[in-house]
């Protein structure tokens, strides 16, 4: 075990994947200079373990600022023998490549009757809560959940990030990785040896009996804090992190709700058609008889993210909001 940050764990998974398979390449804006800290051994470019020095310019490639081409080239390369990891930096940049993601990555295997497999990973970070304004602060994973053919992961801690990303690179289907910027610096003990976390397996972060809290991405640490506070009030909360949104581990969520009879879902994205909405619908359809209280969603409002710290600080689910929602369903 060694202490790693969330960002460090992503870098570690990328290094493992690069060492394990020569078909893995990393392309994206500023990856050579390790600007975002996932293609080097340390924070400095010259630090030991610099990917450019280690793997060479053939496999570590700076791109122009051309998201549509970067994404499309990665898809074409994946269809013909490579396993690219595309670093798109900000999640809002995905919109520039929408045609390639939706019409090519998601559809080609299906439309061509299974002739192609498209082993490509698209990494991007959700820069919310950091006063970057609406052009950088989106949490757009739910938008892509409506596109059949894409797999989607949203890790919430370093150990999950490392194992999930490794599994994503080994998946033969396109995987979108939504990383939570507010968690970049979060540290924990991580197994430095190689391991994979299968896509589609949720993690029960805390066991409980009174209420199930399903939390996504940056809302997971908030949910764990809320569970701690609730324990002090005699409420036993179970916290589940789906980790993968497509395919979604509905079994773990349903089993928990069948035991607790109550469900709160927390996520940093807007409420309408979000992951929380989807999970609510699944639980309402599959476990209605077990519910002892209405399902509650704790999400960001259906608003664009504001810039000012005074406005943005209260914008996303906090431990207090999640705890209050849990309390409100635990009254009966």
């Amino acid at each position: 075990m060694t202490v790693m940050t969330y960002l460090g764990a992503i870098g570690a998974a990328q290094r493992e994947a690069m060492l394990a398979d020569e078909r893995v390449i990393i392309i994206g804006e500023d990856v050579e200079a390790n600007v975002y800290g996932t293609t080097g051994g340390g924070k400095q470019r010259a630090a030991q373990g610099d990917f450019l020095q280690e793997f060479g310019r053939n496999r570590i490639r700076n791109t122009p600022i051309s998201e549509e081409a970067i994404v499309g080239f990665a898809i074409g390369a994946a269809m013909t023998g490579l396993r690219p990891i595309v670093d798109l930096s900000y999640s809002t940049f995905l919109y520039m490549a929408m045609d390639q993601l939706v019409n090519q990555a998601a559809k080609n295997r299906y439309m061509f009757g299974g002739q192609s497999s498209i082993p490509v990973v698209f990494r991007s970070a959700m820069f919310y809560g950091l006063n970057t304004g609406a052009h950088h602060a989106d949490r757009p994973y739910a938008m892509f959940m409506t596109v059949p053919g894409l797999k989607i992961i949203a890790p919430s801690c370093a150990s999950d990030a490392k194992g999930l990303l490794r599994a994503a690179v080994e998946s033969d289907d396109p995987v979108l990785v939504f990383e939570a910027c507010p968690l970049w610096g979060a540290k924990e003990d991580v197994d430095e040896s190689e391991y994979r976390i299968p896509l589609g397996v949720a993690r029960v972060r805390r066991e409980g009996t009174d209420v199930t809290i399903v939390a996504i991405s940056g809302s997971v640490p908030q949910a764990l804090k809320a569970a701690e506070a609730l324990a002090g009030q005699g409420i036993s909360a179970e916290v589940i992190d789906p980790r993968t949104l497509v395919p979604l581990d509905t079994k773990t969520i349903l089993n928990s709700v069948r035991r607790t009879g109550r469900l709160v879902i927390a996520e940093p994205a807007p409420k309408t058609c979000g992951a929380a909405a989807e999970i609510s619908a699944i639980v309402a359809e599959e476990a209605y008889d077990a519910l002892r209280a209405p399902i509650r969603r704790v999400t960001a409002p259906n608003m664009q993210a504001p810039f000012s710290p005074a406005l943005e600080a209260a914008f996303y689910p906090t431990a207090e909001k999640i705890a209050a929602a849990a309390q409100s369903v635990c009254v009966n």
Partner: protein
Amino acid sequence: MTVTRDTMLEMQRRMLRIRLFDEQASKMVRRGQIPGTVHTSIGQEAQVVGACMALTPQDKIAGNHRSHGHPIGKGSALKPLMAELVGKATGVCKGKGGSMHLADYSVGSLGESGITGSSIPIAGGAALSAQILGEDRVSLSFFGDGAANQGVLYESMNLSSAWKLPVIFLCENNHYALSTPAHTVTGGRIWKRAEGFGMPGVLVEDGQDVLAVHAAVSEAAARARRGEGPSLIEVMTYRFRGHAEGLKLTFDDRQTEELERWKSRDPIKLFRARLIERGFADEAAMDALEAEVVREVEDAVKFAQESPYPELSVAYQDLYTDAYAMESVL
């Protein structure tokens, strides 16, 4: 580059395949035997075949909605293509792609695209994998004068030039983007745009001449194989039929005189005359070749019509590669 007699006869065969396949498809749309949308390559056969036959079987192509010619030109068998157009289980894409989304990986056809310009970076990506994996193959992107005004082309040209990728951007300028005359929505000349990206820009003024197209693409392919990077080729050609089968425009900008002028430059008739004139074949041999292809297309139609429709379960396959993900979406 010298083109052998055998290659020239094969060019004529493939042009005939495209012509007769598409004529048949057009009839079948009118009879209600092919569902959905169909765009024929009738009139553009020289441009398609000249390009495809300058490539090796290992080379990759990606195309557009005017789609049947590209895999046929690259050597696809006609039966699975026709079955796909009809929506049968034996279709090259199991009946899930249809006319606009043909792909035949067995001949290096990575897929046609119903979105204008969308497959351009796919060809670029195939060139990237060739470069990184050290494989001796090039990619060719077919796109029209319409796609020439999509931003993704310029992102792709720039990236390919910066990385010296073995890719050929081939603009099939058939003069119309659906109903819109290309010159009314296009600034300057398309082939001249290459200069700004540091790659050769080549104009093939007579795209009805299969050997002219073949020569230009051969040179670009040789350059790509030498590691010197991409080229842009604009081929001037014309579609003899409307944008799509069954599409009735209230206004067609194409004048009868213009259409007749282009039809007098039918690439298949021109090449037939040339083959005979050069002594590579006689009238009887050309008639026999044509009769062979007629039978081949008839067989393809029969195969398509006699094949079963896919089982309903096929609609729920091939989205993901692993069973767990597939189960999760059902």
